[in-house]
């Protein structure tokens, strides 16, 4: 019916109302539902209850190899062997997953897995002090072998006969907790009821509203009558031995009070969480015990109480309407396959820490009850679910389109609607909590009366005990007096007889016998004295009788008074129960709302995570685009800048050539000037010389001779003059040229400056863009890491809502057995044990073994191999697991790493051995094949192309080094991160 209705409901709206709808269906009676319409299979119902996350945001099915690895670790505490993985992959059966789930559940290793699970769950690695560990494991093995149901096992633990030596393993839960009532109460409530009530021992739990001191003391009352008692006995060889027994006595209850509210006493009595307080039928102290329970004990043996509190508790636990027990175990079995419970921590079932999915817990709890607390079919149902078989990868990881196509507005709307609902719920829960508190206060009057009567009754019990003691004394006195009297009477008659006989003897005698006469006289006087004492003795008897009667009366009175009080107590029972029922009713009402409130919060958190992630995603895309754009812009600017720079170069070259020209012209001018000056000087010298010549002519007679020289000189002067004139012309020309060049130079200079300016602007622009790119890069970095964190949140919340598998660490045992198994060590041990078993068998029997017998033999060989190798698991537990009495949680430490990196055993396990992985790798002809084998065997998946490439290079060595390389590669993966975790 459900599966028909559910898928038609709109996804997100459905989820809000789903929990309620399903809750109504479930609580109105699963039984009727079965009668009317057969319920869908449990695994379908489980999947139907997991509906919050929209289907397109849910992870797909995990790959075959990884699924098998997960399944094998969960059901068998070890990874599959390479052969198993290959066989599974090649299995053509369309329902192979279901088939292999059954196969693994039938595997001897599954039995061992359950033994370990029970051991760790119940004993939390406490050292074996009073019970031999092997005996305990053997008992668990037997129980698991008999497919014990959890409720049966609980019953055996609670009800096993404490006076028997044979049932000690059953009682280890108590014996190795030293029978301490507080420790037992705490651990029983944690382990069997999923509630850590420890903080409620001295006051109501300071942080958990739901855990009341009354709950703690109610539970304590079931265990407080029991304690460890050491007894002496003789063993088979008649040697004296001592042994501690977990003895249950008749209960003596006491009121409790909170350390914060002194003076106000309360009474819980034996009370199991939400059940009404139990009322013992009153019996006077003398009637509370049965005869000695333990005939094998030397000395006085502890007696068995008539009524057992542990029996009472066992009965209450088996009431099918009591949910916490079944809820706890359903949750713990779920956690066995998912690494985490629907309620996590496993021992914190309370409304402030609600199940991540209450509908799921409901289905699981119903399922476990339907299966009669049998683990195998229940685990099978869980393993068959889609939820269990999901991959770790969310669809939107691979394809962001799916994320972008999410309707943010609608999600936002949903979120707002939920927020609104949460606000309303917050007020409602507050009101309900007040009402609950009021109901508790209402208990006050009756409770005071109750405590008073109980205290009084306690006193009366003491009075009865006192009276009984006195009565016993009086009885003894009476008996003594009676015995004294009867002795005296007997003596008197014997004396009389003796006298008669003496007289007769005397009469028969030969003559007067003085000695005989003396004897008669002595005897007569003794008889008379005895006779005289009779009266006194009779009085003594009478007095003793009176004393006795009085003591009987006193005892009877005390008993009557006690019975009377017990009746008075009976009278207030009804009003107290009525009021207490009201307390429970209010508590339940509050719980429902409080739970709902937290569930809605979880939903909001999920939606918020998705929305945040999407926002970051979009923001990131935007920023990335912007950066791309900026980079493009920069590119354009740079191109333009490059052309400017080309221009700048050519312009500066031009300027340079003009400068050169200008320099040349200037140089020419200078040369011309120099030349002109020289000519001028020459001319001047000539002119001066001519003047001197002319003066000389005046003095010389023969004028003609000088005249010629003078003319010559004039010609010279003229020539100089004309040269000079030419030079002047040339100079004027050069000067004009220089002016022209200067004008050109100025122009070129201006042009260059303009280009430089242009370049500067361009560079500034580029640097601005660079700056922008830098800040965008930082924003992108920030967003990327933010998105990464947000993605972790999305993953975490998706896993909370079972929309994806969670990456979880292997347990200490899983690491150990996995390494031993993949390296062929375990198989070798099993084979050896199997051989030994075979040798022990008569030769003729072998071919006639039935399949049952063969199976039995495999089981025994497996168990023996495990026992022989257990020391290794213990070593891993010391490194990887929590200490005694602590619950396991993940941590990574240096000494773990040191052990995996340097441990001699790890070294030898990774080595070549028979046909194990390393040996195969060494022998492999084909490199490719070896690498495939390595990955499939150790990680249950094929290598990626990059991994193939990396390993290929690694493998590329001469044959004599292959052995070392193979061992290194195996060892590297065994100590690698992927091997350590379950995907």
């Amino acid at each position, binding site marked *: 019916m459900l599966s028909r209705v559910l898928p038609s409901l709109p996804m997100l709206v459905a989820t809000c109302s789903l929990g309620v709808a399903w809750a109504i269906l479930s609580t109105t009676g699963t039984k009727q539902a079965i009668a009317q319409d057969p319920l869908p299979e449990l695994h379908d119902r489980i999947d139907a209850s997991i509906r919050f996350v929209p289907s397109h945001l849910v992870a797909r099915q995990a790959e075959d190899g990884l699924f098998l690895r997960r399944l094998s670790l969960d059901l068998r505490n070890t990874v599959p062997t390479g052969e198993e993985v290959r066989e599974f992959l090649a299995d053509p059966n369309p329902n192979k997953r279901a088939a292999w789930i059954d196969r693994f559940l039938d595997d001897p290793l599954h039995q061992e897995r359950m033994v370990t699970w029970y051991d760790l769950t119940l004993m939390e690695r406490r050292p074996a002090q009073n019970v031999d560990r092997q005996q305990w494991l053997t008992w668990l093995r037997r129980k698991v072998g008999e497919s014990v149901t959890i409720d049966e096992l609980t019953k055996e633990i609670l009800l096993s006969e404490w006076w028997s030596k044979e049932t000690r393993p059953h009682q280890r839960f108590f014996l190795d907790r030293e029978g301490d009532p507080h420790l037992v109460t705490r651990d029983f409530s944690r382990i069997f009821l999923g509630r850590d009530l420890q903080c409620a021992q001295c006051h109501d739990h300071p942080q958990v509203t739901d855990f009341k001191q009354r709950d703690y003391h109610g539970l304590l009352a079931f265990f407080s009558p029991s304690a460890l008692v050491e007894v002496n006995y003789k063993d088979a060889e008649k040697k004296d031995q001592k042994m501690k027994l977990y003895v249950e006595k008749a209960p003596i209850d006491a009121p409790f009070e909170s350390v914060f509210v002194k003076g106000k006493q309360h009474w819980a009595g034996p009370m199991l969480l939400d059940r009404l307080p139990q009322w013992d039928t009153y019996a006077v102290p003398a009637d509370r015990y049965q005869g000695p329970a333990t005939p094998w004990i030397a000395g006085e043996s502890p007696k068995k109480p008539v009524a057992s509190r542990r029996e009472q508790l066992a009965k209450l636990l088996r009431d099918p309407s009591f949910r916490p027990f079944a809820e706890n175990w359903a949750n713990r079995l779920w956690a066995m396959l998912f690494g985490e419970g629907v309620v996590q921590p496993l021992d914190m079932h309370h409304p402030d820490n609600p199940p991540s999915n209450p509908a799921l817990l409901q289905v699981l709890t119903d399922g476990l009850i339907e299966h009669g607390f049998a683990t195998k079919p229940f685990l099978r149902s869980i393993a068959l679910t889609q939820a269990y078989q999901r991959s770790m990868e969310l669809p939107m990881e691979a394809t962001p389109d799916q994320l972008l196509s999410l309707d943010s507005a609608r999600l936002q709307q949903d979120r707002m609607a939920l927020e609104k609902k949460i606000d309303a719920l917050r007020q409602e829960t507050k009101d309900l909590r007040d009402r609950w508190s009021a109901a508790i206060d209402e208990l006050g009057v009756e409770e005071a009366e109750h405590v008073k009567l109980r205290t009084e009754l306690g006193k009366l019990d003491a009075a009865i005990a006192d009276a009984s003691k006195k009565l016993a004394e009086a009885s003894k006195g009476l008996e003594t007096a009676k015995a004294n009297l009867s002795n005296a009477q007997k003596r008197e008659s014997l004396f009389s007889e003796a006298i008669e006989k003496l007289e007769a003897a005397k009469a028969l005698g030969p003559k007067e016998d003085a000695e005989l006469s003396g004897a008669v006289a002595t005897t007569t006087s003794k008889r008379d004295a005895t006779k005289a004492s009779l009266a006194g003795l009779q009085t003594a008897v009478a007095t003793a009788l009176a004393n006795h009667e009085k003591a009987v009366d006193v005892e009877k009175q005390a008993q009557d008074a006690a019975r009377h009080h017990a009746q008075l107590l009976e009278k207030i029972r009804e009003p107290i129960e009525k009021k207490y029922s009201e307390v429970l009713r209010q508590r339940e009402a509050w719980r429902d709302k409080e739970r709902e409130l937290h569930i809605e919060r979880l939903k909001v958190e999920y939606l918020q995570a998705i929305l945040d992630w999407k926002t970051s995603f979009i923001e990131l895309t935007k920023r990335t685009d912007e950066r791309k754009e900026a980079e493009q812009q920069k590119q354009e600017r740079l191109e333009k800048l490059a052309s400017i720079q080309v221009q700048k170069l050519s312009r500066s070259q031009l300027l340079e050539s003009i400068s050169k020209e200008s320099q040349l012209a200037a140089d020419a001018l200078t040369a011309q000037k120099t030349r002109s000056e020289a000519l001028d000087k020459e001319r001047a010298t000539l002119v001066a010389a001519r003047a001197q010549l002319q003066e000389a002519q005046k003095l010389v007679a023969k004028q003609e001779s000088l005249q010629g020289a003078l003319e010559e000189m004039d010609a010279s002067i003229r020539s100089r003059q004309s040269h000079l004139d030419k030079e002047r012309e040339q100079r004027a020309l050069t000067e004009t040229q220089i002016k022209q060049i200067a004008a050109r130079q100025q122009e070129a200079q201006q042009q260059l400056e303009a280009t430089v300016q242009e370049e500067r602007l361009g560079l500034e622009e580029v640097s601005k863009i660079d700056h922008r790119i830098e800040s965008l890069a930082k924003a992108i970095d920030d967003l990327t890491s933010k998105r990464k964190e947000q993605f972790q949140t999305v993953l975490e919340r998706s896993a909370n809502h079972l929309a994806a598998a969670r990456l979880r660490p292997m347990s200490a045992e899983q690491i150990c057995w996995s390494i031993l198994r993949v390296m062929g060590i375990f198989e070798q041990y099993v084979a050896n044990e199997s051989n030994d078993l075979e040798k022990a068998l008569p030769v003729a029997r072998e071919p006639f073994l039935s399949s049952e017998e063969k199976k039995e033999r495999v089981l025994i060989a497996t168990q023996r191999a495990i026992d022989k190798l257990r020391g290794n698991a213990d070593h891993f537990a010391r490194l990887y697991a929590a200490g005694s009495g602590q619950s396991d949680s*993940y941590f990574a430490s240096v000494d773990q790493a040191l052990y995996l990196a340097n441990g001699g055993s790890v070294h030898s396990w990774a080595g070549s051995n028979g046909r194990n992985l390393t040996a195969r790798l060494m022998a492999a002809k084909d490199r490719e094949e070896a690498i495939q084998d390595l990955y499939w065997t150790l990680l249950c998946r094929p290598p990626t192309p990059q991994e193939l490439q990396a390993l290929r290079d690694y493998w590329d060595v001469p044959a004599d080094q292959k052995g070392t390389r193979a061992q290194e590669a195996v060892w590297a993966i065994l100590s690698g991160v992927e091997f350590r975790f379950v995907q």
Partner: protein
Amino acid sequence: MQAKYACQSLEHALARRKFLGTMAGGAMAGALGSLVHGAAAKQLSSKDMRVVVFNLHGGLSQLESWDPKPGVATGGPFRAIPTSVSGLHISELLPHTAKIMHHLCVMRGVNTAEDDHGKGAYMMMTGRRQTAAGDHPQLGAVASRMLADEEQPLPGHILITPGGGGGRSADAAYLGPKYSSVALGGGKPPSYSERPSNITAESEDRRHDLRRKINEQFLNKRRTAITEAYTHSFEQALRLMERRDTFDVAKEPDKDQERYGKHDFGRHCLLARRLLEAGVSYVQVVHSNYDTHNENFDFHLEQMGEFDQPFACLVADLADRGLLDQTLVVVLSEFGRTPNINLYYGRDHWSKAWSVVMGGAKVHRGMVYGKTNEKGTEVTDGQVNHGQLFHTYLQAVGVDSTSSLAVEGRQIPLADPAEQPIWNVLS
């Protein structure tokens, strides 16, 4: 005889002079100390606080050590000698320690009201009484949790025991095994900290490189806090292997090995110094055989004789090297011993009035806190218990002992919330 065994540190010489009254204050010693070993001290920031605990198993007699009562019926045969703190006398069995008392603070009013070895030890190490309903972490686990640098490859909680093997113990309770003690049985280095002899260094490097490469493939897909912690632990392990020398006392100068003494306890004290200098947050040195129901005086003569010199050397060296300000030193037992001397010249268990010694870090130096009566049977002043001491140890290294830690969503107070630190002995 005394001269032969005397510590030859500078600090000692100065302390001795100060003791003789030729020097006014201790400031000079400090100044010189930091001049000499300034570099070593500088490497540690003020937040780098350490703890070293001397745990004298079996129950040290306060009368033969910190609270001598010579001349009274319960006093025993030994004298009291003056110390570097004027007016403070301790047993003559501790001549070297007497010279460094100005670094220490003697708590003479300890009353723990528990005469059982196991329970007493539990109380002294956890600061709380043992209840069935769950264990509390030991001082070392708390110190390691609160003080240790996450990047430090060396374990933060180390126990040096006279013998036995190595490995972790479950003394961290709910803090988790990460903080539980690593025992160096007989002072040997941690297990598996050495490359197996038949593996070459090249092969080891190749293997780790391959491991990293293969890890990278997976981490590209999924990198979370738990995978980070896991891969990181291997890198830390490799760094620890590189620093394996830290555990090798033979690497200390011969002179120091001479000074500390070549017996086990001497070597263990020197190892403690080495570890503290290497940055280990908590080191506990165990010295056993103090349960002297018979022949108390002979045994204490022997045990104190072994304890005195290396202990005094360590305290003096820490001061000398400028480390004492960052290192809390504690000398404790599970309880003291009866003032009454029994028929076998022994003393039995006595938890009503005994002594604990603290020093360094923020503890007042050269101080006596608390007092017992004439015969040493009762505390007459400054009574303290295990809970207050535990608070005080934490406060001394800058940890707010009244704060809580969130453990799986539950707030758990670091120290017993019903007790308070002894503020009077803290600066």
